[in-house]
């Protein structure tokens, strides 16, 4: 949206020379607009103000008639003007007459820019056909609204993200390993035994299945990552290569493994931030809740793409509910402002008590996950092949407990929040935050309990290795297996809930007309629950990819299938929500939750890479103390000058001033944003004071409006 057209549209010729309000000249935005106008103008005094089209007689407010002048190339295409087709034709003829009068160079420039624009438009249209699931998401948007459509777009984003991460890990880690292991293209690999390590630390024999085994062993192995699956490239233990040689080139696999990990984390972070920047701008500058919410609902509330009568009826109802909720919130705010001291005291003590209960519930969840993990680890190492079902149950115990906790805790939270007497919007947000915390912290607790098992050292021999070498000769593979099990179980649960809860419920509601069943009715599509589910799955994928490089491929396939499952479930078994969330706020919310998941994934990964000693029996980091140690070792191999530079960058002498400079820059931008906001407020007040007087003040009013808008855009960018 650019400043120029509006000023051109509404300013008559005469007042262009001087700024109507003095202090506006001080605005940097006004100055840059002047500069831009001077650059673009030159001989071009063309003002193609839109004339009021038919249906609006005597529209003086619209400004003077269009008079395209010769000389410069006409700016905007005729179709962007609010004129009738006959007038657009006239405008086009005038523009074409202009072109004929202008020089050959200008003609060529104009025609080439036009054809370039056409080509770009067509390319954009073609590319949009390549978009995955374009048609499906369009039809979901039409039938169910934009809130649910943003959930499916989010799912598509995750499929693409996981696919890219898989490509990254596969090409830099798995492919070189496979090539060098099988000696393709004259390659070989080197396996240097680690020095200064006790020999018993380096013993690792992944128990593949030898001889005749029952069929169900394969199934058990597939589901829990043991047996034949353990030695494959799915898990960390396969990559026991210290260097790969492709003819004469040396490929440093340990370094590549670590850098690929950092790369996929950085890629995810940058991509999510890029996507959420739009929503963040909107939320920061225009807190939608307090600002203009009624106007948005009245003027931008109706979805013009609705063609289905059912969807239309529901949209009417949802708009009605939204407006009623807003009015209700106003009344509640008034009520809160009118509270007495005694009531406030009572409310605050009640809230504190309920928070204590919440913390108790959380601790209960965490403790049960810890005990389940410890139990599962102890017993799965003892039992071997005796009872297939019991073994599988023990293996999957942590996943089951986590899923149960993820199901029960949100119900408790939404029950408790009713007593805390918050406003409806804040209630929703607080419950959501608590649920996010529960789901993500559960993974953290699982990993913590795993590590406590792995690094539990009773004997001195064990302390020499740094981890429990007897039970976990290759502990990274164990962690990888747990993440793999979590992911598989999550997928099974989603499938099972859809098949065994949603469809039977739909059948029951359709065919049984007894009161309780009809009162229960169909379930709404809970966007926040579903989003938390997939963010939970994605966090597992991020943590697990370091320990199991092929996990992103499984995640891609899993989300691909989940898209279709959710779509079918939505279309056939769900009733449309009475209060749909709007797309603009939901997009930002999804990405914020995903970002929280990513940041929380950094913690366990950071600890594993930098703190816990890597296993000496398997993996690319055998010769190093920790996984991170490969980086300093590589840096030592650089030329001295480069080493010194790198040491300088990572030393405190550089880091502290750098951090301070970053803080200063941040404060500068915050101050700038604050200053723009104040200018916007001042201009707004100015506008109210300037009365709308068509003889004198029309240009002023419109000019100031446009400057306000421009100032706000500056603030946004």
């Amino acid at each position, binding site marked *: 949206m650019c400043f120029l057209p509006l000023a051109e549209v509404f300013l008559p010729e005469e007042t262009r020379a001087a700024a109507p309000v003095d202090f506006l000249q001080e605005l940097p935005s006004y100055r840059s607009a002047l500069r831009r106008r001077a650059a673009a103008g030159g001989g071009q005094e063309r003002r193609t103000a839109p004339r009021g089209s038919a*249906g609006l007689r005597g529209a003086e407010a619209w400004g003077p008639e269009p008079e395209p002048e010769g000389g410069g190339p006409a700016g905007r295409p005729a179709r962007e003007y609010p004129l*009738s087709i006959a007038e*657009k034709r006239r405008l086009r003829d005038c523009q074409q007459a202009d072109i004929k009068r202008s020089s050959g160079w200008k003609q060529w420039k104009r025609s080439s820019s036009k054809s370039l624009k056409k080509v770009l438009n067509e390319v954009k249209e073609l590319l949009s056909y390549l978009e995955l699931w374009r048609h499906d998401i369009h039809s979901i948007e039409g039938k169910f609204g934009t809130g649910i459509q943003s959930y499916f777009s989010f799912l598509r984003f995750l499929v693409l993200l996981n696919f890219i991460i898989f490509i990254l890990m596969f090409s830099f880690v798995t492919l070189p390993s496979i090539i060098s292991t099988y000696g393709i293209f004259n390659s070989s690999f080197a396996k240097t035994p680690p020095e200064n390590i006790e020999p018993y630390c380096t013993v690792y024999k992944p128990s593949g299945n030898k001889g005749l085994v029952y069929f169900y062993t394969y199934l058990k192995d597939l589901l829990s990552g043991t047996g034949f699956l353990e030695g494959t490239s799915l898990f960390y233990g396969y990559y026991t290569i210290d260097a790969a040689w492709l003819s004469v080139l040396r490929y440093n696999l340990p370094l590549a493994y670590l850098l690929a990990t950092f790369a996929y984390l950085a890629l995810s972070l940058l991509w999510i931030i890029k996507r959420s920047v739009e929503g963040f701008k909107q939320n920061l500058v225009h807190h939608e809740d307090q600002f203009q919410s009624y106007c948005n609902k009245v*003027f931008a509330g109706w979805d*013009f793409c609705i063609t289905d009568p059912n969807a239309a009826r529901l949209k009417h109802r949802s708009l009605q509910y939204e*407006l009623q909720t807003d009015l209700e919130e106003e009344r509640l705010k008034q009520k809160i402002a009118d509270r007495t001291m005694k009531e406030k005291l009572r409310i605050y003590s009640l809230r504190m008590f309920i928070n204590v209960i919440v913390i108790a519930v959380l601790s209960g969840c965490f403790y049960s996950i810890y005990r389940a993990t410890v139990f599962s680890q102890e017993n799965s190492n003892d039992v071997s092949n005796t009872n297939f079902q019991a073994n599988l149950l023990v293996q999957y115990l942590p996943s089951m407990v986590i899923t149960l906790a993820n199901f029960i805790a949100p119900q408790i939270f939404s029950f408790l929040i009713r007593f805390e007497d918050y406003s409806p919007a804040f209630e929703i947000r607080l419950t959501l935050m608590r649920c996010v915390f529960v789901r993500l912290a559960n993974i953290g607790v699982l990993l913590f309990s795993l590590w406590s098992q792995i690094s539990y050292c009773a004997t001195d021999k064990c302390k020499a290795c740094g981890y429990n070498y007897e039970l976990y000769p290759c502990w990274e593979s164990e962690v990888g297996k747990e993440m793999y099990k979590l992911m598989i179980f999550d997928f099974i649960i989603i499938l099972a809930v859809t098949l065994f809860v949603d469809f039977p419920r739909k059948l029951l509601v359709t065919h049984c007309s007894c009161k309780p069943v009809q009162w229960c009715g169909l379930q709404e599509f809970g966007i926040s629950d579903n989003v938390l589910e997939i963010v939970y799955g994605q966090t597992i994928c991020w943590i697990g990819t370091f320990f199991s490089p092929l996990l992103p491929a499984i995640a891609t396939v899993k989300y691909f299938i989940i898209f279709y499952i959710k779509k079918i479930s939505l279309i056939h078994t769900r009733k449309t929500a009475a209060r749909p969330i709007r797309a603009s706020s939901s997009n930002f919310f999804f990405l914020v939750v995903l970002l929280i998941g990513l940041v929380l994934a950094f913690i366990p990964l950071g600890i594993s890479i930098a703190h816990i000693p890597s296993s000496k029996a398997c993996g690319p980091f055998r010769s190093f103390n920790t996984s991170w140690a490969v980086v300093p070792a590589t840096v030592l191999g650089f030329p001295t000058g480069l080493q010194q530079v790198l040491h300088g960058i990572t030393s405190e002498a550089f880091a502290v001033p750098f951090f301070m400079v970053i803080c200063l820059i941040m404060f500068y931008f915050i101050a700038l944003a604050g200053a723009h906001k104040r200018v916007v407020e001042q201009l707004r007040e100015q506008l109210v004071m300037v009365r709308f007087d068509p003889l004198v003040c029309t240009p002023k009013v419109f000019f100031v409006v446009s400057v*306000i808008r421009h100032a706000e855009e500056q603030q946004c960018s």
Partner: protein
Amino acid sequence: MHGRYHEMAPNVVPMDYTKDPDVKLPMQLIINMPELKENPFKERIVESFSEDGEGSLSFNDFVDMFSVLSEMAPRELKAIYAFKIYDFNTDNFICKSDLEKTLNKLTREELTAEEITLVCEKVIEEADMDGDGKLGFADFENMISKAPDFLRYCFKKKIVSCIFSGIFLGYHCVV
């Protein structure tokens, strides 16, 4: 596009437009189109694009309408036509009675009179810049530029791209 226009009244609309015939379709036919049928503002939309203000659209007006409704039209254009549509009494201002009519159309008259008054007051309070108690075009445009859902929801039809209309009417430079 011409096919759609023609099939609404095949005996009236000629196939050949080179002689520029003066054919107009009445509002009743247009508002029964599937794209507009469920829209609460369909009558206002058709009235804003018709030349005589009564709601009958010639083919030019028809193309105009879908051109503005398409995803490719710029925001300023959509804002101008949105203003016209919400201005029920065509006095160049969205006053309280216009807002009441808009609300009733949006909620199918489910809100109580008190709620409608409250919402209208809130809207005018939020958007009115010059303090005259009604929304002029400047107020409306300023407000709509801050509405994040305006381009997403409103005035968006995915059926037509402007290149279509260009081809039919012999435009090759309306880019």
